[in-house]
């Protein structure tokens, strides 16, 4: 498998194309070149980036269509600065859950019929770090329930949609079911 195969066919032409391969990374140009994916041991690792959600969804759809094995990683790892080794796995799990609560990915993955949580659990089992999920889940739970109180109108507004908040409450049960399966 090569990086060139991952580029969705619609964007394959080389002239005037925003996708490019540089230094073993697949990049997408949006103001600047943003790293999108790389291949390691015949597994595609995609930087699930909120900066270009539409392109991410197209890429995932393409990967599902051609049955490539893929996992997601945090864009923080694309930075050459890197992160500490003990923070590596929690960062990726947190990023999986953070992307799950983003409206663009929440609706987009539903449209293309892709289960992000199943993919996350699969990766956790592979890396042997299932015990970190609960800790990361609780961390993101605080973000989902973030609210703002308007004292003039005496109203409480939430940052995320009700649908996402309600879904996230029962998400840990789904994770446990996926882990058993």
């Amino acid at each position, binding site marked *: 498998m090569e990086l060139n195969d991952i580029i969705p066919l619609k964007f394959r032409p080389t002239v005037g194309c925003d996708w490019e391969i540089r230094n073993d990374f697949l990049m997408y140009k*949006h*103001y*600047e070149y*943003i790293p999108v994916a790389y291949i390691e041991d015949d597994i595609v690792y995609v930087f699930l*980036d*909120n*900066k*270009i959600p539409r392109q991410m969804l197209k890429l995932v759809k393409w990967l599902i269509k051609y049955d490539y094995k893929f996992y997601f990683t*945090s*864009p*923080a790892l694309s930075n050459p600065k890197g992160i500490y080794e003990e923070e590596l796995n929690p960062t990726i799990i*947190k*990023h999986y859950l*953070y992307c799950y609560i983003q409206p663009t990915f929440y609706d987009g993955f539903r449209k293309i019929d892709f289960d992000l949580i199943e993919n996350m659990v699969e990766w956790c089992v592979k890396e042997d770090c299932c015990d970190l999920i609960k800790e990361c889940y609780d961390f993101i739970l605080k*973000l989902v329930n973030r609210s703002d109180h308007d004292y003039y109108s005496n109203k409480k507004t939430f940052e995320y949609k009700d649908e996402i908040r309600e879904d996230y409450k029962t998400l840990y049960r789904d994770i446990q079911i996926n882990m058993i399966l």
Partner: protein
Amino acid sequence: MCRSRAWRRHKEKTIVIRRIKRMVSYERSWWIFQDINNVSHKFPVLSDYIGTPTAFMFKSHVTTSGDSKHKVKYSPNKAKAYWRDGNKKSTREKHKLEFLKILKEHGIK
């Protein structure tokens, strides 16, 4: 002359990049910047601002009379002011607002 959509998109990109770059130069201070992926940066660069509300805000900004009043006043083309606000009858921004209003009236948006 009305330019094509590709030209307008290209121009918009260059303007947004210029505005972000200008912001990057003075944004470096003691607080930590968090990008759209919830990743914190001590010294953010242009690519960290992509997708943030500020970057989107820079897309919709237009040159107003307050930005370039002096420039236009002493320009040889001062009769042809290029401000997008004020009493100008037909600008693309006004057309967009009108179009949105029509869409809302018909319940499309």
